[in-house]
């Protein structure tokens, strides 16, 4: 297992390297954002420990760039700031976990192990199906770059469709996942909302991506 440690504080970087090596990992150190992006893109790391304060750019940028370059190694952010906004921002740009300095080294190791169990599968922050994109963090929806305004129910419905693009989704499934447990209305409401969604997502663009599958439900065309 190979780990990239991004840390500009030399002493801290050496300590982390030593500790990780003793735990049996191979470790590379990057002390600037530029080095981190370059190393992270060129090498297949199993995990990245990322400090947020870097001399040239901050850690958020590094994380975003790595994801843009198609690197999905789990990222553990290390931050000396305890502010909620930093943590939220980090997780929303694609980091997988965070740890506040000072931390217990055993916890650092445990979190890295947990992240590596999940592996480096592709898990983009924003969903994309064809030219339709949806960002759950910013709640922005766009088709071919044109922003689309959706109500929160329509948004949830579209998110569910996009997470199962190409699959047939039944009305019962939609009722269960998009409406809450207590909802007991008739399944007509699904048809109504799908119609709303088509009016906003498909019709203005001359598309027909949300198809009705007779007797089964709906399907969002994956292409």
């Amino acid at each position, binding site marked *: 297992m190979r780990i990239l440690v991004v840390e*500009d*504080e*030399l*002493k*801290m970087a050496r*300590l*982390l390297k*030593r*500790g990780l090596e*003793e735990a049996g990992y191979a470790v590379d150190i990057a002390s600037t954002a530029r080095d981190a992006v370059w190393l992270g893109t060129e090498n297949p790391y199993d995990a990245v420990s990322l400090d947020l*304060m*870097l*001399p*040239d750019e901050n850690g958020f940028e590094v994380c975003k760039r790595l994801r843009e370059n198609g690197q999905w190694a789990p990222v553990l952010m290390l931050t*000396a*700031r*305890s*502010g909620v906004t930093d943590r939220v921002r980090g997780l929303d740009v694609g980091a997988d976990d965070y740890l*506040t*300095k*000072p*931390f*217990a*080294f*055993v916890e650092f190791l445990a979190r890295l192990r947990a992240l590596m169990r999940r592996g480096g599968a592709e898990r983009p922050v924003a969903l994309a199906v064809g030219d339709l994109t949806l960002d759950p963090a910013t709640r922005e929806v766009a088709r071919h770059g044109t922003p689309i305004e959706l109500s929160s129910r329509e948004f949830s419905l579209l998110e569910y469709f996009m997470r199962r693009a190409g699959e047939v989704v039944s009305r019962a499934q939609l009722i269960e996942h998009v409406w809450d447990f207590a909802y007991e209305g008739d399944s007509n409401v699904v048809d109504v909302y799908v119609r709303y969604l088509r009016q906003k997502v498909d019709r203005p663009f001359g598309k027909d991506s949300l198809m009705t599958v007779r007797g089964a439900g709906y399907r969002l065309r994956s292409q």
Partner: protein
Amino acid sequence: MHLPIRVRLTLIFFVLVALLLSGVGLLLYLRLGADLTNAIDAGLRSRSKTVIVGLRAGEKFNDKAAAAEFDQSFIQILRSDGSVRDSSSALGYEPALDHRQVRSFKGSLFFERRIGRPTEPVLARFLAVRTPGGSIVVVGQSMEQRGQALRRLLNLLVVALPASILAVAFVGYLLTAAALRPVERMREEAAAISSTEPGRRLSIPKARDEVRRLGTTLNAMLGRLEDALTRERRLVDDASHELRTPLAILRTELELALSGGRSTEELELALHSALEESVHLDRLAEDLLVLARTEHGVSSANPEMMSLADTVREACDRFALRAQAAGVTLRGVVDEEPILFADPIRLRQALDNLLENSLRHSHLAGEIVLSGGHDDGQTWLKVSDDGDGFPDSFLAHAFEPFTRSDSGRGRDHGGAGLGLSIVRAIADSHRGSVTARNLPDGGAEVTLRFPRHPQVDLHRI
């Protein structure tokens, strides 16, 4: 007076209006009385002439007297000795003039007396005129109508004046309330602003009036407070970050050392590293304390007269050994023998911080110059070197806490980025200033300026 402004204004308004309207009422009353008396006098004069002319023509007296009594006027004709010759019945046969009056008056005489039955006397006004023939013609007119007119006016005033005073005062109260309503609204808004939402501002009324100016001023104040709060929060944020980094290293170092199977040598290295971090933490805590004390005026500055030359020499002496070790020349330059007014301990701290910075950024065989002098009523102290100089991006924020000239942390090279902000706080507490610039030939220069005369801000120290 501790009454609300609205009540106070209304009271003042009430008193003024009451005085004014009462004055007007009194004037009206007196004026009407005088006018009515004048009208009666004019009537008496013309009647006396008519009577005299009639007498000369030998008219019979009774017809005239009877006609006169209809409009409550009276006629009496006296002989020259004062006895009654003819008289309206209402006057009876008592002469209207007593002997003294008969003797004393010449030409004509106005007088007033009561006539009629003693149970219901009537006040009347008379005019007595001596005819060329020696007899005296007295004409009189009841003043009852005049009295009635005045009484009617008085009645009207007694009712109307207090009513209108009250009405005007009430309107005044409403107007004051209306004028103060925007202020009250603003007060409510201001009361709702808390430190959790320092970005909130008062809404400004559209009219270009005093309330708008008040609102604008208050908003400007809120803006300054918000800025101060933001600065303070950032300082705390930065300080906690700066404290956490060495703490994280310390903890990780010790945890790894304790994880077992370490040689004595390894443990010794770990302890050295831990010691280094604790020294760094100690210095950081000390710097933060100095900054907080200087900025918030917890400890007092004790400015005193100092010799500028001595100050410069002593500072150079303190750094002489270190400069020598670093291969840097350190020179002190003072042209004259000026006097400096400053707190010696704080000034020493400021100079030490500046010299420390210069030493850190100087090259081998470099030169650091500490100079002092006077101009424009200010004393200046200047530290210049021929080292790296400040990066341009740093110059703008040089005196803000936790900014460092070497990008990133550069912790290995020295301070936490508090040195220059401490220098600025010290300059501020002396009502002085500090500026930094890069010299054209490379190297940095920081200038401290103090007022030449003791003007230490007593509120800040």
